[in-house]
């Protein structure tokens, strides 16, 4: 690694896509101003974006795997700069074992999605490229922030960008889907913002200066949020005015994004209405932020509240798995079916998180990554089918294994990983989560098992309807199999699935120390109070 990257690796990763898009805008503007032309065509934008994101991916894989120390407990590759210490905001980014797999997933998926969209005819390709690159910056910012206000800022930017991504192409229904998305996630996000504001105020009251960094650093030696005592309601404060209220504020934001039933209803419409390969951005850039938020922020900051609310949320998530599987079975639209599958899989991840066991948390991290990869693969495959037949209806397909054997094979592999077949990545996540859940309530365990089996059956049946059986529809007879570009995209996605499934040790070895570290904060900050009582509010 050259010296100019040393010490700023994470900032390069986060901002390279953003800087690319800004320079594209600048050059475009210069072209328009001085040459009077329309600026660079969208295809050029896409090509430049592809090279830039591939560079980011290479930088990430090389740099992060080179510099990341698997044995080190805690955050690494830290960067810190004062931004607005008066309000507690600092540019504080760091990497640890929990964010490492998700970051690698994001930087790998974006160039693949751009490559997959090569043949798309979109009205304003430049806008699409803009949103994809900006969204990559925002998502990486969320994953790498260790200052909660910075986290919040990147989070809201993600939401606004996804709003435009969903709604810009597709007419009235996509606008409705986008608005529904923004309202729901915006409400959660504003609740999180309010919780952060209250935390800052508590900090000022007790320590004099707001400090929203999670941990102390050499640049900001004041104790971070994870190192000061938890704020609890004192005196006659109402139960929601202490850490439970703050925890619920954070949960509101994360639960809408996971998405946790019953707040999941925006996802099928949003995924269906997003045009082209933008659909595949949601499972890898947006949805993983929810479980990550729980692991990074909600649990370590408010352990008592999390433990108290745990059984309720776990039950809701477990019910959500079953509910999503049933709803998925009722969908005839392939994209909507995949959206409900995502809901089910990420609800399982949430169950794993709230089991509050080490294997549950490691399983949750691996499961989120695995879900990201498989969901992207499945959505892209369905997209390839759409490119040929312009329909997502499952009835329109059948017997595709004959004209399109390569697609059917890769589809089968991706599907198998999604349903958790051993030797593929989904299995690793699932088995770890289940072993964590098994240490808790048996009812939840049974619900998860039923859900997993149901999901497997559902995915099997879907595959059979699409790839096997007689060729019901004559148009499918002449379909051309996927070309080199599409094969490359799917293979690059399948390789990690096989790798994690067959030899998960490199990944687990890096995730585990950070999980142990986060759980250490959870244990240290738990005050083992009796269950929070609801006291009647005393008016002053």
């Amino acid at each position: 690694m050259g010296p100019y990257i040393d010490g700023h690796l994470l900032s390069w990763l986060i901002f390279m896509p953003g800087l690319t898009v800004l320079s594209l805008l600048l050059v475009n503007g210069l072209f328009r101003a001085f040459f009077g032309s329309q600026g660079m065509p969208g295809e050029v934008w896409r090509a430049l974006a592809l090279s830039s994101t591939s560079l980011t991916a290479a930088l990430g894989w090389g740099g992060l795997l080179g510099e990341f120390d698997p044995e080190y407990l805690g955050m690494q590759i830290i960067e810190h700069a004062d931004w607005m210490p008066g309000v507690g905001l600092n540019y504080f980014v760091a990497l640890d074992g929990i964010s490492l797999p998700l970051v690698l997933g994001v930087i790998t998926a974006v160039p693949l999605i751009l490559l997959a969209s090569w043949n798309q005819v979109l009205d304003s390709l430049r806008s699409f490229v803009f949103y994809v690159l900006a969204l990559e910056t925002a998502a990486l910012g969320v994953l790498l922030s260790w200052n909660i206000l910075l986290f919040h800022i990147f989070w809201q930017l993600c939401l606004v960008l996804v709003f435009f991504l969903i709604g810009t192409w597709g007419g009235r229904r996509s606008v409705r889907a986008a608005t529904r998305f923004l309202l729901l996630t915006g409400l959660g996000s504003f609740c999180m913002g309010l919780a952060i504001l209250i935390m800052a105020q508590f900090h000022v009251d007790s320590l004099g200066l707001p400090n929203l960094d999670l941990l102390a650093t050499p640049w900001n030696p004041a104790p971070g949020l994870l190192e000061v005592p938890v704020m609890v309601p004192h005196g006659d404060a109402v139960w929601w005015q202490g850490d439970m209220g703050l925890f619920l504020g954070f949960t509101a934001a994360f639960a809408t994004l996971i998405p946790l039933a019953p707040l999941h209803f925006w996802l099928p419409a949003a995924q269906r209405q997003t045009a082209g390969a933008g659909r595949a951005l949601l499972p890898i850039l947006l949805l993983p932020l929810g479980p990550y938020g729980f692991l990074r922020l909600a649990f370590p900051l408010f352990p008592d509240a999390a433990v108290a609310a745990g059984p309720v949320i776990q039950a809701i998530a477990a019910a959500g798995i079953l509910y999503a599987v049933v709803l998925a079975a009722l969908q005839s639209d392939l994209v909507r079916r995949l959206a409900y599958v995502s809901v089910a899989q990420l609800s399982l991840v949430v169950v794993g998180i709230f089991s509050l066991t080490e294997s549950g948390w490691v399983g949750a991290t691996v499961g989120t990554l695995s879900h990201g990869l498989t969901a992207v693969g499945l959505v892209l495959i369905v997209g390839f089918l759409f490119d040929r037949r312009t329909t997502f209806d499952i009835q329109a397909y059948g017997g595709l294994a004959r004209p399109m054997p390569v697609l059917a094979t890769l589809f089968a592999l991706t599907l198998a990983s999604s349903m958790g077949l051993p030797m593929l990545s989904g299995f690793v996540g699932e088995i770890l989560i289940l072993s964590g859940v098994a240490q808790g309530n048996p009812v939840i365990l049974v619900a998860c098992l039923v859900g997993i089996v149901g999901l497997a059956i559902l995915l099997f049946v879907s595959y059979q309807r699409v790839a096997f059986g007689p060729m019901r529809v004559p148009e499918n007879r002449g379909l051309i199999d996927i070309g080199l570009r599409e094969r490359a995209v799917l293979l690059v996605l399948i390789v990690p699935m096989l790798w994690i499934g067959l030899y998960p040790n490199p990944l687990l070895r890096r995730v585990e120390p950070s999980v142990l570290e986060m759980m250490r904060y959870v244990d240290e900050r738990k005050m083992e109070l009796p269950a929070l009582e609801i006291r009647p509010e005393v008016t002053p």
Partner: protein
Amino acid sequence: MNLASLGSLLPVPSLIMAVAAVGVLAGGVWGRPLASPRGARGELLLTVLASLSTLACVLWSVLEMTSGVGQEASGFFVFDSLAAVSTLLVGLSAVAIFLLSSTYLSSYRLPQAEYHALILFSLSGSFLCFGAQHLLVLVVGLELATLPLVILAGYDFERRTSNEAAQKSFFASAVSSVVLLFGVAFLYGSTGHLDFEGLKENLDPTRLVSAAGVALVFVGFAMKLGLVPFHQWLPDVQQGSPTSLSVYLAVCGVTTLVLAWMRLMLHGLPEMDVLLSPVFLTFSVATLFFANLMALFQRNLKRMLAWLAVAQLGTFMLAFAAHSPESYSALIFYLGVQAAGFVGAFGVVMTTAEGARERDRLEHFAGIARHRKILAVAMTVFMLNLAGIPGTAGFWARWQLLSASVAAGDLGFVIAQTLASVLTLYVCMRVPVVMFMREEELEMAESVMPSTVELGVLLACIAVAIGFGIWPDPELPLSFGGSLVDLLRGSVGS
């Protein structure tokens, strides 16, 4: 008599504005007729004259602030730090509005001399009440500030809606002034004093007459501002007036009233703030939810922006309820950020106005992003600023104000404000949706290209909205408030 004490004896910015107004009027009378090419240049000259004189006032206030303000009050008027900051805010907004209005008015073929003169008179009144130390000075300043706007509401006299706006504005202004003066009379009756010093010492809040006086004064202000439930006149006036006046009402009008009320609270009625807190909180919640809901149902962009301005008033009331130096300084910062946002948003509406047809319905902006990307992007930035999305100054303004409210203990109302903000977000996002995500329905003529001046003002507003959102100087929002905190504390004289 040196220059330093001059500022305390005479309301200098007010006088500058009055002289400039007379000068602009004279220039209009003796200048060339409108239709000739010399006339067009003359109009531009008048705009420049108006802007320069406003900038002179701003410069004066900056000089006074940096040279150490004279605290000698004459009993009627003092140009202290609060007055200086208020003059700065309103003056800069007015300059931006002058620049935007000039193109707008000439496209309507409306005479600009009288327009600019009336605005300058209004500014004269605003600057007068910013430094008021006497209730009558405050009232005179407010009247001088609001009456010209009544006339200007009907400036586009060929349009029926403009006439209607003038009538409604007149009634609202008259009734609110009567209520205000009634309250002033009660205060005089109960304390025997009209100056703020005397009021502070002699006001006994437990007496019914005093309480009635304060209540009536506040209701008078609320009616002028358009707080719920005194809002009925506002949307029609905003929609009917020429857009250059709508923006002046939403920005300078509101800022003047809020700052005048702040002056009264800080200097004249300091003990009343604890008693009035519940009142402010009630108004805040009512305004927040009602105005946001009404904005939701609007099809006309000017009306929608007017309702959003009223909704922001609900947030301002939280600052008054918290009545701490931090909340007041956060409010001033918020006012500045709001000014930039609304000047920009109305500026985009003004830019697309064409000839004699006002294009202010949402449908007129459908699909504008295809060919006028700069306007669509600018409008999106201003809407995000209004909604308080991070990356814009509006986020930090809301953050500061809500922090101050939380510190003062109004947590429940802060939660209400957060819920209302989601409504604001939805309303604000409708505009980019229409601009980016719908097909172009009406043909956009080639003339709808922002002129250089308009573009400059829009870019300046974008720079404020985004610059204060990401300014690397860590202390700026707080130091702006911090130094203001000291100044406010000093000027309160406690």
